[in-house]
């Protein structure tokens, strides 16, 4: 730069050293740049970074038991987890539940949280809440509680309450990975008939990879055609590529049901042409899922590849040909490497968007095609178990970041180009 070649002592016309003057000019430019970037930066922080941060926090932070059973939590913090807790813990449960009735916070909320760990405990807690209201005096309450429900005489119940009373919990994350605490407070794998999420995570990634590859295989030749045809024809074809892009996702998914079902258009045609003797199952299985998702994702892969191809001068291939390369060799060694940044961008876009699908697999997929977002939506909306929804989201985010890292190592994200 200029300053490197100029002597320290050089001053401008008004006597200020050039270096300071330059710095001032730079600072003004920087401020301007920051001012320009600031709105977008704030927008991203407020609408993207903060919600994701809160979501991740929800996965490990659940103060519900500590808040609803403050006395019990305090007593159990001292308890070593062996045998049954002391009388004070029983008295604290009674006090907490009575307090809950006074404050009109539903005892059911305690039951709901504990029910995640011990199925069926919810109604026992609610029943206990009702009975406790009738208990009088100052105790001892141990016998009384065990009489109300024998579960109060079981160490596991108390262990679960103790574990849940910590505001920071690993329960949701463990559950999202099919692990749980057993009665002895050790982490163990869930039994096979309860373990679902590992499979679903793997399946989600599997389907996304398959859809990405399918869009690449179908999209690359089309993009090549569009890039090489004269604008008049290519514009028309481009509209055909974009047309489904402007149709609602649900409409397109339903259209595939009509096409692919056993009594549907595709089967009818194949039978009529004599290619098939028996109707084949093309929907409510993996085939249907991949076909419908590929259709929806195709423009996302195709467009970045197309716009990168548009920038490749046609002279390159011609030069290679004139130097003696065969048609394929010239394409493969000269043209194709220049499209890689577009392929990288398109594939990454499609892969990451595919990870979030749930309506399409639900409507055209079979029971083995459900993807993880379905469960995130289920826990968020229907079960109002936001801890679990957040934990699943967090695991998906972590898995995506790992894959992105690997992808970066293999392809190099800095080489990626959208056009």
């Amino acid at each position: 730069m200029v300053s490197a070649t100029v002597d320290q002592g050089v001053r401008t016309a008004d006597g200020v050293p050039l270096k300071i003057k330059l710095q001032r000019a730079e600072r003004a430019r920087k401020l301007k740049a920051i001012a320009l970037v600031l709105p977008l930066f704030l927008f991203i922080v407020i609408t993207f970074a903060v919600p994701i941060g809160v979501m991740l926090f929800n996965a490990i932070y659940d103060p519900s038991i500590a808040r609803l059973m403050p006395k019990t939590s305090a007593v159990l913090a001292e308890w070593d987890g062996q045998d049954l807790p002391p009388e004070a813990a029983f008295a604290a449960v009674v006090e907490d539940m009575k307090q809950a009735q006074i404050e009109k916070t539903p005892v059911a909320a305690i039951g709901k949280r504990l029910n995640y760990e011990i199925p069926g405990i919810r109604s026992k807690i609610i029943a206990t809440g009702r009975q406790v209201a009738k208990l009088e005096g100052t105790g001892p309450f141990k016998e009384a509680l065990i009489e109300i429900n024998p579960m109060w005489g079981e160490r596991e119940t108390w262990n679960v309450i103790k574990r849940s009373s910590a505001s920071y919990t690993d329960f949701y994350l463990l559950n999202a990975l099919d692990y749980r605490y057993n009665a002895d407070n050790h982490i163990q794998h869930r039994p096979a008939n309860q373990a679902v999420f590992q499979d679903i995570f793997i399946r989600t990634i599997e389907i996304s990879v398959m859809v990405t590859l399918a869009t690449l295989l179908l999209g690359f030749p089309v993009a090549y055609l569009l890039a090489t045809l004269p604008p008049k024809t290519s514009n028309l074809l481009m509209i055909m590529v974009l047309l489904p892009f402007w149709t609602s996702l649900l409409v397109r998914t339903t259209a595939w049901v009509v096409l692919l079902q056993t009594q549907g258009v595709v089967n009818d045609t194949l039978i009529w042409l004599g290619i098939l003797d028996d109707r084949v199952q093309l929907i409510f299985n993996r085939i249907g899922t991949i076909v419908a998702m590929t259709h929806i994702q195709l423009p996302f892969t195709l467009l970045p590849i197309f716009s990168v191809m548009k920038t490749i001068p046609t002279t390159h291939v011609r030069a290679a040909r004139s130097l003696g390369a065969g048609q394929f060799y010239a394409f493969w060694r000269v043209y194709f490497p220049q499209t890689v940044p577009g392929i990288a961008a398109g594939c990454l876009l499609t892969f990451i968007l595919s990870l979030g699908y749930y309506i399409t697999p639900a409507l055209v997929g079979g029971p083995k095609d459900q993807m993880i977002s379905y469960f995130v939506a289920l826990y968020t909306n229907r079960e109002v178990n936001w801890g679990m929804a957040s934990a699943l989201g967090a695991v998906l985010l972590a898995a995506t970041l790992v894959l992105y890292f690997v992808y970066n190592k293999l392809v190099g994200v800095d080489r990626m180009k959208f056009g």
Partner: protein
Amino acid sequence: MRFKILGTSSLVLAGLTALALAAEKPALAADSLTIVSWGGAYQTSQREAFFKPFAKETGVQITEEEYTGELAKVRAQVETGTISWNVVDLTTRSALAACAEGLIEPIDWAKLGLDPANFIGGDLQECGVPNIVYSTVLAYDADRLKEGPTKIEDIFDLEKFPGKRSLQKDPFGNLEWALIADGVPAADIYKVLATEEGIDRAFKKLDTIKSQVVWWEAGAQPPQLLADGEVVMASGWNGRFYDAVKNEGKNFVIVWDRQVLDWDWWAIPKGSDKVDLAYQFIAFASRADTMADQTNYITYGPANMDSESKISSEIMAQLPTSAENMTTAIAPDIQFWADNADQLTQRFTAWLAQ
């Protein structure tokens, strides 16, 4: 002088009018109520039977909104203290969950001026007033199947009824039907399901037809699957099948045997500043005559038992709550499901993926 007096008094009058208007304004604003339901034909029936007549009778302006059961939206409103939904139509499970989370008001039946004993399911939970009783039933297309299924066991009879069948992708209802088909008396279903062996038994029965089941997710799917001939029989919500018969001329036959009943509930989000008005609306929409009127638009059973005498016999025959259809109906144990839905859904999902 005279003029002045007149002038003063007219000024005073104008001032008083302005004051009165100012005082009246918030009252006017309070006289509107936002009610949220499920849209479609169901919300249309509510509009005709409840919203419009209520607005006419009381002058309250009703703003309708639609949702698809996202309790998350209620939770977000309650947690941020910005309640814009005053009355919400909830499913049984949502109502129980929302009640446990303290998101909706416990119902004071005395304030409604109603007796829960008069309502089917009125005593089942604290935070909701039952509005309709709908059911999951089995149905088939008589144009395609001359001799259709007549009882729930037929779902599991692959010899007599070969081909695909469609069931809801949810353990609810399916586990009950599996046990019935496996010979468990209806009265013992939930006793059996409460044990590990009982759950195994239900899944084992479902195993026998697993390869032949198309699982549905959205309520619109079963009638469509039947109409397209994709499946020979399908479970679904009774109103949806009836709608296809009435409006699309389909020849669907509903098998009422072992229909699984369920409810929809009116609930009031906690912290709403229009609780009294919400109560007034719910009381109106729970009257025997308004509930009976709803059946003119959709074939779901009114929860108010006094409605029955006001419904024509043709419509009555289509309702889940008619005496004839109720003979073998399964009234689900909603406390059992609240306790075990998490565990059973997880297990059901694992089973599907096997």
